[in-house]
């Protein structure tokens, strides 16, 4: 399928990074440091996730890339082009889905795409086929001639994604794309993002509050907090850093375990009927733990696993007051564990 393949332009050599930001900063009026000197780069063909709590500066970063707002200082290049000098060329290479709905509710879906593709200078002979393919791809063909006002929120979101595809972007900026989508539409959006990336090498920058989504999709992740990048790496690297998985064993009778083999893990809680064990790799530890309990003649009701996830990473780096006390303690023990096992 050749539907959404971006066209190579002469100006953008292959060896350029898709995005290159150096000490990029945006200060709004009133001395609000929305983005406070961030440096990062995104390779061509990468799916990059930008995470962070509300107000961290994610949308502002995306708007600077999209040339919707001007940077205060630093440098920003998209496929080697300086965004402040070549804003029109830069916009031509990017597909953008803003955080809030931006389709025109007074037009039909088809008209929305038609106007947008005209403004994006999609060639006339290709226009109609691209529009129809994008509508079909997002499952909107049947209702393409209906006024968008009558669409549901999720359908509008899908229309926006369709819109971002008609100009065959080399770079797709998605600001919380799956907000308001039902699980199946969300899955569909994830699939299309992956497909665009794999088949056509589209570079993707995505912001999200859904850690699961970030984990599923992204090759690399940066967590922003208060305008700065707090940490950056692959999801696996980041998860490793916050510690291992927690195994909870529920016993039939109360039993206190005096010593536990260090190779399996470390007991972090031993209540009457429940034991929590911190391990480096939960899946591998479960059979060993089961053997251990059987060996000691302790009968076990259930064994459950709580894998380290990006939520933990997020909580660690996102400066925000936690309300969930339990979560805090789990995090603390995980951190301790990480420190110990170093």
């Amino acid at each position, binding site marked *: 399928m050749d539907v959404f393949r971006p066209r190579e332009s002469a100006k953008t050599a292959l060896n350029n990074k898709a995005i290159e930001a150096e000490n990029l900063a945006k200060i709004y009026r009133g001395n609000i440091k929305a983005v406070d000197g961030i440096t990062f780069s995104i390779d061509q063909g990468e799916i990059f996730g930008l995470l962070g709590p509300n107000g961290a500066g994610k949308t502002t970063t995306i708007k600077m890339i999209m040339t919707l707002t001007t940077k205060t200082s630093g440098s920003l290049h998209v496929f080697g082009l300086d965004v402040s000098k070549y804003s029109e060329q830069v916009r031509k290479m990017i597909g953008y889905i803003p955080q809030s709905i931006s389709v025109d509710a007074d037009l039909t879906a088809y*008209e929305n795409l038609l106007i947008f593709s005209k403004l994006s200078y999609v060639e006339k002979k290709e226009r109609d086929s691209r529009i129809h393919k994008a509508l079909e791809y997002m499952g909107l063909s049947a209702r393409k001639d209906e006024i968008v006002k009558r669409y549901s929120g999720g359908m509008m979101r899908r229309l926006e994604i369709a819109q971002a595809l008609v100009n065959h972007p080399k770079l797709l900026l998605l600001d919380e794309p799956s907000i308001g989508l039902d699980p199946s539409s969300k899955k569909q959006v994830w699939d299309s993002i992956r497909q665009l990336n794999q088949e056509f090498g589209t570079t993707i920058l995505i912001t999200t509050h859904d850690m699961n989504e970030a984990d599923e999709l992204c090759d690399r992740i940066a967590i922003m907090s208060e305008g700065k990048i707090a940490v950056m790496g692959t999801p696996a690297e980041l998860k490793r850093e916050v510690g291992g998985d927690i195994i909870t064993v529920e016993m039939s009778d109360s039993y206190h375990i005096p010593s536990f083999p260090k190779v399996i893990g470390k007991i972090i809680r031993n209540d009457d009927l429940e034991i929590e064990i911190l391990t480096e790799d939960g899946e591998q530890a479960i059979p060993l733990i089961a053997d251990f309990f059987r060996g000691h003649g302790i009968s076990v009701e259930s064994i459950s696993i709580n894998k380290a996830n990006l939520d933990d990473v997020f909580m660690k780096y996102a400066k925000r007051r936690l309300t969930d006390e339990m979560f805090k303690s789990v995090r603390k023990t995980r951190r301790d564990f990480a420190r110990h096992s170093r």
Partner: protein
Amino acid sequence: MNIRRFFSSAITITEMEARKIRHDSTELWTRIIQPALWLLIFGETFNTIRAIPSGNFSYLQFLTPGILAQSVLFISIFYGITVVWERDVGIITRLLSTPSPRYSIVLGKSIAAGLRGVLQAIMIFLLALILGVKVRFDPFDITGVFLVVILFAMCFSCLSMLLASYMKTRDRMMGIGQALTMPLFFASNAIYPISIMPSWLQYVSIVNPLTYAVDAIRSLLVEGNYANLPIDILVLAISTVIFQVLASRTIKKLLE
């Protein structure tokens, strides 16, 4: 910058407006009420009592171009509200994130205001026909009126977009629109000739673009005397270009 692309973008923005009007034309019909009241009540009354000198023509004939210009002024001076609303629902973000240059988007928006102005003019022609006001229904004059209306609507819609870039909210735009329309209207030749104004107001009316628009429309529609037409159009064109350039430069502020 590619000229062909530039104009094609502007026309696309206008097309967008035309499609919206096609889907829902209620606004067009409600906009006929006010000019109808002006002509029916104010016009008929002053026509009868002959309180205002209107030269060789009846007062209704004199007034019709003024009311036409007034209603186009309303459409265009409040056009910024539409743009602020479009900002609120994300459409401006969408438009500004296309590769189309900002100038072409502002130009397209102002032509769209011109389109609304022309539709309004057609309505007022119909109204004049119904009321039996004698106007010159000559193809050349009608076309001329349309062109003047477009230019005039472009001029004030650009001023409105320029103001919107700074005002940023619908409420403020509503306020500023109301604060502007009445002074502009009364300091013009829309409902009485300049010659009967106090002299200070005459000076104000000279720098008021509305005066030139009314004058141009009146000479095409009623008088058939084109002597002042070049000056009228020149003044309108220069103001349009100035507001156009300023609005294009500031429109991005709307997003901040």
